[in-house]
């Protein structure tokens, strides 16, 4: 089983619970959840997660801003970051990849597919 620390920044209650269950079931990750962008970002900057899952529409600071700041910092240039969002316009997806996200998963998604993508991403490191 893959190991590591995952930080999830997501303000929707059910999505948060769902992702937590997925990680508990399929991976042996330490799981931390934040519902506010600024709080999540601060935590990330003081720790070194192996994986970050970001929603885009967040209070405090939105996902794109957080992604940009992380990629501009030395410590997190290469951390694996997945964007998870209900925003499914091609322009948003394009923007996500322009800002160097490793993956962009749109809601609604399938749990199995989600798991597969994470496995693939973590193995690539």
């Amino acid at each position, binding site marked *: 089983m893959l190991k590591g620390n995952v930080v999830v920044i997501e303000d*929707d209650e*059910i*999505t948060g*619970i*769902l992702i937590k*269950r997925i990680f508990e*079931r399929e991976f042996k990750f330490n799981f931390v959840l934040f519902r506010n962008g600024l709080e999540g970002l601060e935590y990330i900057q003081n720790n070194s997660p192996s994986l970050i899952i970001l929603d885009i529409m967040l209070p405090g600071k939105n996902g794109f801003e957080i992604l940009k700041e992380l990629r501009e910092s030395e410590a997190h240039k290469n951390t694996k970051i997945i964007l998870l969002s*209900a925003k499914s316009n091609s322009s948003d997806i394009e923007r996500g990849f322009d800002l160097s996200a490793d993956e962009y998963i749109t*809601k*609604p*998604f*399938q*749990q*199995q*597919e989600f798991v597969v993508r994470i496995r693939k991403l973590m193995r690539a490191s």
Partner: protein
Amino acid sequence: MLLLTTFLYLLVYTFWTRAKKKYWSRYKVKFRAMFMPLILDYIETANRQSDADDVIKKLTRRNEDIVLFLEILDEITEILNGDDRKKLNWLIKHALFDRFYRKKLYSNSVNAQLLACVYYSKSGYLNRKMTVRLISLISSRNTKVAYASAKVLQNSTNEYIRLNTLKSFFKRPDASSMMIGELLHLFHQNADKIYQMSGILLKQLLLQKDIPKDRKQLVIDYIAYHNLYEYSLFLRNYLQTVLYRFENKSLIVSLINALGELRVKEAGTLIRSYSTIQNAEIRICCVEALNQLGGSDNLSFITGMLLDIEFDVRKRIIQTLVQDPDNGHLLLEKFMLTYLKFVSKVWTSELPPNDMLVFINKLRSITTGIRITSANKALHFNPVQK
């Protein structure tokens, strides 16, 4: 004295309301804490429809519980799809809910009818008897009920029922454009339920006399937005039948826009004929449409419109030609060369007469516009045009 009693009554009522709300929100939290894991477990482990029964068994028949439960299911449908969604549907379509809401559908209370319609939109279940009832609800005095039942009817496997629903609903004066847009969207969705959509049904909406023009506009916008090319020639012919009158202005604008979006080359001549019309908004959309139709003839024609009397039209032409990836800028150059020669000739003689001055100022404004717009394009300062 009367006032004092009213006052005290209000005081008590306020606190009573708050207490009630507090109680319910605590209840809701407890309910969700209990059922969320159950539902999520179910999604992970269920194999058959009957597994849904196990979960439902734990639910009481209380009104509030059913509503809260469905709320959770609703939220999950926003997040999960595919196989997970299928299992979710087993839950949503369960007989318990169906019975609960079927009763409401036939009740006389507007609230109940609304709740029932909202449920059936999601569950997708529709039989003949319900259809009859829903059709009658479209004439309800309450807009939301009419809208909600129109939405449910878009689940019908009979395309004519879908269409006739739209016909009835679009006649209502209180239908908002958001509602209309949503219904049009649902009309084509789940079209796999319908064996085959026959031809261009939406044209009936455009030809119907008692549907207000602004609705027809939305239908046309919808057709354009979703690239329903099969409507191309119909729209061109339709434009020919619309007389130019003030009240038809928006309809004409929509039609020209649509013909541009759908790249209906056969409509070129027709659109050009609108380029001299009095209304600036129509002239602007001619420019945009001709630009979308493309081709050097159309672009030259647009350049020829550059001396338009309205600033907004000139600005749009300049923006269009500057943005054009091929020869737009060459046409602008040619324009400038032609007129600049003229201007310099005029200036070298004495001060030009007044009407000439207006013309020269227009030219000046145009050349300024070309300069600034081109510079901004190079610096990527132009936001994407809508």
